[in-house]
């Protein structure tokens, strides 16, 4: 591995670990949110960037985990480990089911079916008052109870909890995308017919990628629910699915770290700009348009292309 990459890999967790010492609680909270959405964006990158499956319904796996956190911690138990198992279980089960339905489609049909399935869930959450709180959602979710005398209502403590999972996810996914399975996904993105003729069961790979992406999205959804203490149908909706897609494209699809960066940028901008003006949606829209017109390969994608071009000379 190249030296800058190694330095970044070791340095980043250290920097992130030291950050709370230098920041106010508000900013610590902000970085926590950036990490949560970075996890979400990386999970979509597995699907979109690496496997070439453009999902417009990825919020479904995120949202179902968030709702599970809400329902379990409000009605059953606040023990973190049990909630974790339930939330991840829900997102894995959902993606296992949705995957069976969606994976047979490709291209624009895949876009449409993932959209339809996610909207289906959104519709259920929106109209099911008794269980899911309808369009009011589920408020009052307390921070997790890990069974240790540490309060995670404290911004810094929660930050470190999220940081541990963030580093874990980045580490595991970094190996995953370089594994035989991971490069097979890239092959599928490039040419399904070639992969089939080489001997790969392409459907199965796509299906597993879908489930894995859903599981990781579930991790993000879980922490999102804990972070804000509230879950609503918007956590399942198309606006969120489109936003996480933007994060991936902005950062650079297929680079893993790019989407994490893209997520951080969008979260940061949203928080900063929303504090100054009400016109954040307009600016977000302008970002969508700009990325497509000017930087379709994303930040990291464009950067890598420039590196390669100067190396070729």
């Amino acid at each position: 591995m190249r030296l800058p990459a190694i330095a970044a890999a070791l340095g980043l967790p250290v920097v992130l670990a030291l950050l709370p010492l230098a920041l106010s609680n508000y900013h610590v909270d902000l970085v926590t949110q950036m990490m949560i959405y970075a996890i979400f964006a990386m999970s979509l990158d597995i699907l979109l960037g690496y496997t070439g499956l453009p999902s417009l319904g990825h919020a479904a796996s995120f949202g179902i985990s968030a709702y599970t956190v809400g329902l379990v911690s409000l009605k059953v138990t606040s023990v973190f480990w049990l909630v974790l198992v339930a939330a991840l279980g829900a997102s894995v089960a959902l993606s296992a089911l949705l995957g069976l339905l969606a994976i047979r489609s490709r291209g624009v049909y895949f876009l449409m079916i993932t959209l339809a399935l996610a909207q289906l869930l959104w519709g259920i959450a929106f109209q099911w008052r008794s269980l899911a709180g309808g369009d009011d959602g589920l408020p009052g979710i307390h921070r997790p109870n890990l069974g240790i005398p540490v309060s995670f209502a404290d911004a810094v403590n929660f930050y470190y909890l999220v940081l541990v999972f963030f580093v874990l996810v980045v580490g595991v996914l970094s190996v995953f995308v370089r594994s035989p399975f991971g490069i097979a996904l890239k092959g599928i993105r490039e040419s399904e017919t070639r992969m089939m003729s080489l001997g790969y069961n392409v459907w199965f790979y796509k299906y597993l990628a879908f489930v894995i992406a859903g599981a990781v999205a579930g991790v993000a959804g879980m922490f999102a629910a804990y972070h804000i203490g509230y879950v609503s149908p918007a956590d399942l909706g198309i606006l969120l699915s489109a936003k996480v897609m933007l994060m991936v494209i902005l950062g650079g699809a297929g680079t893993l770290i790019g989407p994490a960066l893209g997520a951080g940028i969008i979260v940061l901008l949203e928080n900063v700009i929303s504090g100054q003006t009400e016109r954040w949606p307009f600016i977000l829209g302008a970002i969508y348009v700009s990325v497509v017109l000017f930087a379709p390969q994303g930040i990291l994608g464009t950067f890598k292309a420039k590196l390669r071009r100067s190396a070729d000379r």
Partner: protein
Amino acid sequence: MTFWLVQIFNGLSFAMLLFLLAAGLSITYGLMGILNLAHGSYYLLGAYLGLTVIKNTNSFLLAILCAIAAVVVLGIVMQRFFLRRFYKNELAQVLLTFGFLFMIGDASLWMWGGNPQVLPKPSVFEGSYRFGSIVVPSYRVFVIGLGLLVALGLWLFQEKTAVGAVIRAGVDDEEMTRGLGINTPLLFTVVFGVGAALAALAGVIGGPFVGVYPGADIEILLLGLVVVIIGGVGSLKGAFVGSLLIGLLDNFAKALFPEFTLFTMFGAMALVLLLRPTGLFGRK
């Protein structure tokens, strides 16, 4: 009995709105490979512009004309300078048109505020008609009539004119169409413009009974997508039949099992995508 008839009537008028929206959306994708998620924005903008014109001139007709004119210009600019470059690149189109959706939506919020508004009906349609035991607002009759008229006009155009034939052929096989030496770029722009005009029209005439509010763009877009998928991409007949189905379904669902309307809509869309991806009347 009366209940059912009234529901059917309401469903039909809503179906006409959906048809006006879905027709443009469907043909645009079928002919040009452009998935325009900002189509709902044309509806929203049409409604708001119509509202402003009516408030200032009291003329419903003028409202319709101005709304259509403005939205058509916007639509053509979007198509010629932005969307054209991303033919068949659905991912780019999704993000690009979403961007426009946000920008237009927020600009509208800024200009007209966040309160839901209702357009005043033209005075000639403020009464109601009696059909036997049922009373229906004459405005809804107007909407249904107008919708059917437009549907008929579009159908005649598509079936009986040379340009219409080219469009039908283009939906089936666009490479061949290009090969026929027709000025495809001009045709595409015109078709796109017509689609935008219909959406704006829907916004204005829907204003009096559906109203206009922030978020209406996404709501109507999603319903429009459901209609297009169920009816079949690129098919006018599909858009019409799909609109009827969804318009009626939406109305009956709201009346009978209001907690399941959304589930029903998207469930139907998902089902069609799984079992018959090209929809009821789409190309194979």
